[in-house]
């Protein structure tokens, strides 16, 4: 292949590096008005009075919309598997159609003004009074009230194999440990932004979203218009990480404000409004217990978690999933439970579940290794399962031990003195840690059309999303190679709900999802071209069989005989030829959903599919202050085939960096009395900066998974898993201290 597997530059790199790429708040409209939100200051209650008098008198104010004057919208749809777009409901609250307050920060008014400053000024002048109701907001205090989480079709919260507690009690060696992880926020640098306008009952929305289809369908429901009346456009999204998957209040309220004022309205959330209206990752309390024989073989593995949801909604993370797949323990038990809080619903964030679950599991494995006097990699090797531990299914592909082996060699693992606190460099204590990475492979359903024109160009139309992953680049590469055309002959249209739907950009599934449909469409297209050639007198392909002909050099050829696409089309009198996968009719949508579910369930019966990897970390810890610096990193990954080695490396590094943030700095602080987030800003919530990040080395084994399209497994999330554990294990190696509560800040090491 000419392009697949190569370090091709991003097709949109120049647009981004010149500032020409337009994001959701950057589309100009004449007569544009600006919106700002007013947030509730109580966790639960009823609004007894809203005084918008001062706000309305503010020069430039166009409207103040509250529950007293907002037009009625349909309530948010309840999530149901019959209509996947209902999964985009972020909360059950009918915002501005109710006097009820369900979380501290819930929007209770929207101000629309001629200028941004006037909107923000007036928003501060809206006076709201409440009758407060008793609220449950303190996650840690609610642990005892956690209730078991139910298994769902898509994820399993409880599994048991054998009697793990009994096996643990009988084990000659064991650890039984408690971990906590705080809530964290995505903090994409682009705040959630929407520009909306209505033309009669037609709504156009520029929205920062990971799912234009879901956003369209939700808005159609909320505003009671046909889906075809709503168009959601989102070609560039300034980072998302799961935080732009669902439809959050800002999107709906911008559309509402545009309807009320009859003008185009733009709302770019302030950073504070992002924290108050868009959920983050749940905090967790976890228990991991492992029993083992003296030789290291695990006899029991128990992993349980407590996480939270809002009473009005929230994503349940598969925190214990990693423990179902990683180690060949004779007895196994995973359990998840939930507390329900009067709080903003938490949501999907990069590797929901696995990111924090792998912290607890992989830290525990390290502790067990020390107890057994075994190298942590050797302990993992001795427990590497031949089949999926929880149910005996075959792995479609799993090169975890190869990742460890290659990584150990390159990182110099063997030179490490095993005992903690053994290496010192001036004031720095130096340590190395290792952990496994793991994330399941997903594949959804995408519709797609292809057009090949007589000038040799190809147009791919598919409503996927670009938030930095480089999907347009990868899909261009695959298209060019599959049809045998130059890369610059391929144009891709994406990020628009009017395009064939591609579902959500999530679960690390987008490349595999779109690739499957693309390969289908390419085959249909070349079949179509061949059929034209065969029918056309004078074509050198007449009389040949389809299977003997290949797409290459801009046409169809058998050995040296054949001709270019242009020649075939022109000879047949055609300007272009199309191919299509899936359809946008209601029947087409249903067929797509049925196809997805049946493939999903069949695959699930046969295979355990996942990406995995080995994370190697070196830290330097200031012996006096407890300051932790990450000084070296190597991640070796088995992510199936890599389409673009350059963009893949960037995405893998990005996950590792987000994991370093989670390990050392990030924490969304909630006032346990009021439920209010107190560090709702980028100055008080610390994400890694340039100075925190050394050279991050990443390697991919690049071995295609035979069960996935083109062998692509997906790599957006696997790289954040295992990171916090590798850091914590390295901190232990450096200092002799085990920190089981994230983030590992200085105070915990003093």
């Amino acid at each position, binding site marked *: 292949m000419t392009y697949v597997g190569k370090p091709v530059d991003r097709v949109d790199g120049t647009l981004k590096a010149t500032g020409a790429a337009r994001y959701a708040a950057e589309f100009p409209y004449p007569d544009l008005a600006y919106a700002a939100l007013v947030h509730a200051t109580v966790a639960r209650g009823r609004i007894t009075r809203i005084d918008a008098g001062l706000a309305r008198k503010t020069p430039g104010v166009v409207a103040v919309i509250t529950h007293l004057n907002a037009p009625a919208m349909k309530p948010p749809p309840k999530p149901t598997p019959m209509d996947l777009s209902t999964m985009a409901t972020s909360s059950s609250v009918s915002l501005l159609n109710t006097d009820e307050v369900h979380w501290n920060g819930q929007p209770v008014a929207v101000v629309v003004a001629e200028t941004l400053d006037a909107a923000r000024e007036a928003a501060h002048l809206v006076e709201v009074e409440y009758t407060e109701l008793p609220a449950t907001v303190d996650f840690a205090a609610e642990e005892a009230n956690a209730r078991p989480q139910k298994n769902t079709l898509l994820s399993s919260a409880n599994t048991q194999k054998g009697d793990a507690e009994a096996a643990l009690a009988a084990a000659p060696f064991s650890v039984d440990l408690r971990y906590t992880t705080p809530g964290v926020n995505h903090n994409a640098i682009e705040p959630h932004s929407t520009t909306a306008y209505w033309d009669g009952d037609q709504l156009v929305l520029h929205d920062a979203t990971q799912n234009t289809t879901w956003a369209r369908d939700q808005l159609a429901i909320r505003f009671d218009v046909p889906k075809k009346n709503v168009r959601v456009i989102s070609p560039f999204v300034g980072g998302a990480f799961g935080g732009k998957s669902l439809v959050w209040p800002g999107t709906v309220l911008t559309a509402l404000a545009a309807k009320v004022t009859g003008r185009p309205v733009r709302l770019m959330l302030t950073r504070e409004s992002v924290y108050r209206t868009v959920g983050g990752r749940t905090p967790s309390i976890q228990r991991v217990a492992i029993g083992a024989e003296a030789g290291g073989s695990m006899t029991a593995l128990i992993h349980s978690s407590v996480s939270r949801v809002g009473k009005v909604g929230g994503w349940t993370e598969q925190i214990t999933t990693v423990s179902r797949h990683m180690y060949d323990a004779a007895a196994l038990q995973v359990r998840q439970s939930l507390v329900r809080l009067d709080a903003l619903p938490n949501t999907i964030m990069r590797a929901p579940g696995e990111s924090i679950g792998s912290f607890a599991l992989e830290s525990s494995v390290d502790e067990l290794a020390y107890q057994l006097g075994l190298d942590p990699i050797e302990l993992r090797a001795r427990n590497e399962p031949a089949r999926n531990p929880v149910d005996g299914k075959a792995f479609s592909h799993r090169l975890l031990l190869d990742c460890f082996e290659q990584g150990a060699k390159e990182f110099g693992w063997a030179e490490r003195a095993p005992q903690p606190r053994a290496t010192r460099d001036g004031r720095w204590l130096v340590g190395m840690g290792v952990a496994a990475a793991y994330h399941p492979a997903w594949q959804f359903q995408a519709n797609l059309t292809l057009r090949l024109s007589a000038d040799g160009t190809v147009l791919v139309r598919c409503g996927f999303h670009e938030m*930095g992953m480089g999907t347009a680049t990868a899909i261009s590469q695959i298209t060019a190679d599959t049809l045998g055309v130059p890369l610059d002959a391929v144009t891709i249209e994406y990020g628009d709900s009017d395009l064939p739907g591609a579902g959500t950009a999530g679960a690390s599934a987008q490349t595999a999802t779109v690739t499957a449909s693309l390969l289908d469409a390419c085959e249909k297209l070349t079949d179509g071209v061949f059929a034209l050639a065969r029918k056309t007198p004078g074509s050198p392909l007449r009389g040949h069989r389809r299977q003997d002909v290949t797409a290459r050099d801009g046409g169809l050829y058998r050995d040296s005989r054949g001709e270019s696409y242009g020649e075939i089309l022109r000879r047949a009198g055609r300007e272009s030829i199309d191919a299509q996968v899936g359809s946008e009719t209601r029947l087409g949508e249903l067929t797509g959903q049925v196809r997805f579910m049946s493939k999903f369930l069949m695959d699930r019966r046969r295979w355990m599919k996942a990406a995995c990897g080995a994370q190697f970390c070196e830290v330097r810890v200031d012996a006096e202050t407890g300051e932790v610096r990450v000084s070296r990193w190597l991640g070796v990954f088995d992510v199936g085939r890599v389409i673009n080695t350059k963009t893949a490396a960037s995405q893998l590094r990005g996950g590792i*960096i987000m994991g370093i943030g989670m390990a050392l700095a990030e924490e969304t602080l909630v006032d346990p009395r009021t439920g209010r987030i107190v560090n709702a800003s980028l100055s008080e919530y610390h994400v890694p900066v340039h100075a925190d990040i050394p050279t991050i080395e990443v390697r991919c084994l690049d071995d295609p998974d035979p069960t996935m399209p083109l062998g692509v497994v997906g790599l957006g999330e696997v790289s954040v898993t295992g990171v916090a554990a590798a850091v914590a294990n390295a901190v232990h190696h450096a200092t002799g201290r085990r920190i089981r509560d994230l983030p590992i800040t200085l105070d915990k090491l003093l």
Partner: protein
Amino acid sequence: MADIRMRVNGSIEKLDVEPRVSLLDALREHLGLTGTKKGCDQGACGACTVLVDGERISSCLALAVQYADRDITTIEGVSDPLQESFVRHDGLQCGYCTPGQICSALGMLAEHAAGMASAVTEHVADEEIELTAEEIRERMSGNLCRCGSYNGIVAAIQESAGSAR
């Protein structure tokens, strides 16, 4: 309202803005120069970095009226090999922090060329401070990249600094 003139990317722009309007909002909302990004609006992320008379500032913390008659360069006015280096080294993913990173890097390279030391400079009195990766990281730490393209950004700046400058 205040009538001001400023030179933006080489052309004189007349603006009629309230004194409270930030330079960032003036650029984005009044002049339609949306290449300069808003990430936090409080000087914590660096996405809004522009060059004023060649020096980098956070335009969200600047009032437009303070910059009357000054020479502003936004990403739309930048044409520098550094931009190609960013693409080649993949110093970007979603692209949202990129204009700020690029403007900041240009300002930083000028500071370095002028002999300015940083918190990690070992010998601050040296006439020529070597622009190591560590120096670049320190000097670029006001520009957040949540996608984590830091390695690529540093490589792009190193390449650019090593060639033409």
